[in-house]
């Protein structure tokens, strides 16, 4: 058996690696995506008809090759990332806002709000997101705004549950009791004493959810229920690329790798944050 010290030093070495790789992957891709209007002013739409179906790593002009219309794969991956990152961040922002408010109220006042929240949580556990999304998007029609709305509508519950749990653990603590004893109002207790103490788990969950929602958006777009197929997006490129997998594998490989490195980077950061902010493991699955 390794000594405890050896384990912990290999562990802290590994933790730093997690942070470095996480920043490198997620940050690197985010940087390319954010700079894409400068790097690729044609928005990935330019067709180089003489260079159709160029394989990757063979021409400086098209490092990652071109698709059957002669569009540059690298440019489209960079531009397409905007959709993924936007959906990831906006959906999480919406869900965390609603979820935190509901969770604070349910955990602090308990009663009917708490009861309703827990029943919502039961429903959410029984209905996989993808089924709900398929049903509503099939009926309401595809679209990026609707994808974000469905994500917010189904995911706020997770934040609410997490916050409720933290608040329950917190509300009988002495510093809260003493705040109440000296007459601090409920609203002030919730926002200045309780909220800052539950932020850690929320931030971890947010990081992991951005990653998760990037995956979900790509799935929905791949299925034709997400982003308009005319707008470059990772899921859309994969749906396209699948039809000419035999002649141009690179069109399907690179957007998938872009998703993988973005999500892996965020997952690594989430893991790193978990050890930093949540040593007792409230957010572990």
């Amino acid at each position: 058996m390794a000594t405890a010290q050896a384990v912990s030093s290999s562990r802290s070495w590994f933790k730093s690696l997690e942070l470095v790789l996480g920043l490198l992957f997620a940050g690197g891709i985010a940087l390319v995506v954010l700079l894409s209007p400068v790097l690729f002013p044609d928005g990935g739409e330019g067709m180089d008809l003489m260079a159709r179906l160029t394989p990757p790593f063979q021409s400086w002009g098209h490092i990652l090759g071109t698709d059957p219309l002669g569009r540059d794969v690298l440019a489209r991956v960079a531009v397409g990332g905007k959709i993924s990152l936007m959906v990831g961040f906006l959906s999480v922002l919406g869900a965390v806002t609603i979820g935190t408010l509901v969770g604070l109220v349910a955990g602090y006042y308990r009663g009917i709000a708490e009861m309703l929240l827990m029943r919502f949580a039961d429903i959410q556990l029984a209905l996989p997101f993808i089924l709900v999304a398929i049903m509503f998007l099939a009926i309401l029609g595809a679209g990026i705004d609707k994808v974000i709305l469905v994500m917010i509508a189904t995911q706020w519950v997770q934040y609410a549950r997490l916050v409720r749990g933290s608040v329950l653990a917190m509300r009988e603590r002495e510093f809260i009791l003493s705040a109440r004893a000296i007459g601090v109002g409920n609203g002030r207790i919730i926002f200045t004493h309780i909220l800052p103490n539950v932020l850690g788990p929320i931030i971890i969950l947010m990081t992991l959810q951005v990653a998760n929602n990037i995956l979900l958006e790509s799935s929905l777009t791949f299925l034709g229920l997400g982003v308009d197929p005319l707008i470059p997006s990772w899921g859309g490129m994969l749906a396209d690329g699948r039809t000419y997998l035999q002649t141009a594998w690179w069109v399907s490989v690179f957007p998938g790798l872009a998703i993988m490195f973005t999500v892996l980077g965020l997952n690594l950061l989430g893991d790193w944050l978990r050890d930093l902010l949540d040593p007792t493991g409230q957010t572990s699955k």
Partner: protein
Amino acid sequence: MAGFILKRLLQAIFVVLAVTLIVAFAIRLSGDPAIMMLGGGGNVTEQDLQNIRQALGLERPFYVQYLSFLQGILTGDFGRSFMGGTPVSLLISRALPATLLLAFASLIVSIILSVPLGIYAAVHRGRWPDQLIRILSLVGLSFPNFWLAIMLVLLFSIVLGLLPPSGMEGPESFIMPALTMAIILTATNVRLVRTSMLETLSQQYIMVARSKGLRDRVVLYKHALRNSAIPLVTYIGLQFGGLIGGIVIIERVFNWPGMGTLAFDAISNRDYPVLQGTITVLALFIILINLLVDIAYGLIDPRIRTE
């Protein structure tokens, strides 16, 4: 114990009601089924539309329609497809086995892979095999399952020419869809096995077993694994919903004739009764599995009942 089962049962019934209500409501948002059935043709008169609404019972208030939808579920009647009038229950009875076959096969493969890997990681906690398994499982959680499916098609069908890219022609058609889901599931399950083993290994009875001089293998497989199995089964049972959701997408890639394919065909045909039936049956199935797992857990481990 009876109280515990009753409580869980009531919860499940509540969830069934809520879920069916959501489905019924969503389908109502789709607009007027009468117009959809007749299409936008020029010869449709208001009278035709009225007749269809009458026949479908659309003139009744929403709650009456919802109750008759519930009644339909109880009797296995989900209405008829807009395309050709086949009973939805018949379509589902053909598609559901294909989906469940994939679900259970990939679950079994993933358990075969993740139990030894997870134990290995737990035993080597903090050392490089553990870190490697951890990294691999993080990578496995980081790509969309349909992309993995496409990559497997690229490798096994196009490059190696070993397996058919889609359909349900023979046993070979089954390998790639099941493998895709098994790999995705294994990425999660390895972590679950590892955590649950670590927890068990820190218990006092393990220390007692070790201090009695029992061999490591006996302690691991007889004492630790058996006691870890209970929480594991629960976690894995709770993933069932996610598993079904994943399969629905994978079926699309492989043209696997299951519930996912049925649902997507229904979407492109705007065949809402079929969509409604598919989603409802899948959701009911997931609720049932979760309920059974919960009750089983309560039966095996009395501490849960008092929670």
